[in-house]
């Protein structure tokens, strides 16, 4: 992070962080405002029409449910279980998919042969694998991590493959004519060159994985956010269901905003490689 003030063209580098903090606070406000508006509407509509709590809970009862589940530690336990599964499945998925994607991307013949397969499995990845995963791994941790892995693996491998094959030939030639051999070509050119696509792949794959996780937890376990939702339904506890839905949504937004978007910014946008849609 040397000379970042110089790079951004700021004339007073010392005050840069103040400006950045203000800016990100403003950004957060813009992001949170619509969500707060939704809560406000909810707080007005439910008492106004005297909605049956078995159909939809009031804001207060959800807040109570949140307080209760935080106090008895159950919410943290569910969140922890879900995050652990997503984290582990994603880690295994990325670690295996990236080298494979690069190896395939290097050879045009292999890549064109495998591309249709990867597209097929990218679409299939996720909840469609739950039934067979439970047969292979039994109900529980293994089956769910497999579903997550599956959702991440194919999307990341496909995107890595795509990323490698879109690196201009002249850049590879430049590296070779500067003395780069196989390994250096891989670590200095192919990996960073494919990174924009890899990050996109991880972002898409994690999105699939998160949805798949909730679905899998409803079927194949006895702890986790999906399980929390599913069990609450049996007791007509709509306030727990809605709490679970809110937590699931918020957690994803946090993962995306605090982890994936900054990762994209730190690398790709600075390099001018981003192709935003």
């Amino acid at each position, binding site marked *: 992070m*040397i*000379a970042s003030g*110089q*790079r951004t063209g700021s004339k007073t580098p010392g005050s840069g962080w103040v400006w950045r903090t203000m800016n990100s606070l403003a950004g957060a406000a813009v992001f949170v405002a619509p969500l707060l508006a939704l809560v406000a509407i909810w707080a007005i509509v439910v008492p106004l029409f005297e909605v049956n709590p078995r159909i939809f809970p009031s804001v207060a009862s959800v807040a109570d449910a949140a307080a209760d589940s935080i106090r008895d530690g159950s919410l943290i336990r569910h969140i922890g279980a879900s995050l652990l599964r997503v984290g582990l499945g994603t880690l295994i998925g990325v670690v295996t998919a990236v080298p494979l994607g690069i190896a395939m991307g290097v050879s045009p013949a292999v890549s064109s042969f495998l591309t249709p397969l990867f597209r097929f499995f990218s679409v299939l990845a996720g909840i469609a694998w739950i039934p067979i995963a439970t047969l292979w791994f039994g109900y529980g941790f293994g089956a769910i991590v497999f579903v997550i892995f599956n959702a991440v693996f194919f999307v990341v491998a496909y995107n890595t493959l795509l990323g490698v094959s879109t690196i*201009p030939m*002249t*850049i590879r*030639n*430049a*590296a*070779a*004519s*500067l*003395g*780069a*051999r196989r390994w*250096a070509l891989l670590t*200095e*050119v192919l990996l*960073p*060159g494919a*990174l924009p696509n890899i990050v996109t792949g991880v972002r898409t794959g994690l999105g699939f994985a998160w949805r798949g996780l909730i679905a899998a937890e409803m079927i194949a376990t006895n702890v986790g956010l999906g399980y929390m939702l599913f069990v609450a339904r049996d007791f007509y506890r709509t306030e727990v269901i809605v709490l679970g839905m809110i937590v699931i949504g918020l957690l994803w937004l946090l993962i995306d905003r605090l982890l994936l978007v900054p990762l994209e910014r730190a*690398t790709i946008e*600075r*390099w*001018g*490689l981003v192709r935003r849609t």
Partner: protein
Amino acid sequence: MKTLSLRNLQKTYFDPYAGSQVTAVHDVSLDVEQGEFVSVVGPSGCGKTTILNMVAGFIPYSGGEILLDGAAVKGPGPDRGVVFQSFALFPWKTVLENVGFGPKMRGVPKADRDRIAREYLELAGLSHAADRYPNELSGGMQQRVGVVRALANNPAVLLMDEPFASVDAQTRMTLQEELTRIWQERKPTVIFITHDVAEAVFLANRVVVLSKGRVLDQIKVDLPRPRVWDHLMQDETFKRLSAQVLQMVRSA
């Protein structure tokens, strides 16, 4: 002393659109002396870029041979530095890291290669841009980086493939003047591919005119150095030589 020798070089390839074998380079023989600046000029399709790609080792040749200091060229290597029309800088590396890439590949420790890179950046007047990324620079600055990145690796021969074709006219003239200055300071052996006749004459000790995959003719350029556009534009010898080369290219 001869550095680079092309002997009866030939390139044929299969053209999938024409559905037949096409000969891009028929029979090219060329010797380049150490420290010589040779411009290769010709109309598009004359095979000039194909020749450069063969010398760089990016594509195989079909016949003849390429000798660098007596040894046959096979595949790309750090003894032949290349400057690309599209710059081909590494977008994920800073300017300093780009220029230090060749030394890094040779195993030069970080402190030493940073020093080498800074020295070459100074040569190109780019010291202030060391920590920037390529996409933050103008086209002209990017190509300055491209030139010193190749030079920093100390290649036996510097291959330049229409390097200034994608920058604006004013910047191009500045880059040409800077290149002649750098050449005078360091005396690298250069093969410079271009379709711009004035550029070819301005830069070179010798201009090779190519036509339909063959060497049509060669002209020695004995203009004094340093070469500056303000002087040369009015210079009778420069005008005569340019006209002569232009006539050859147009008849080619």
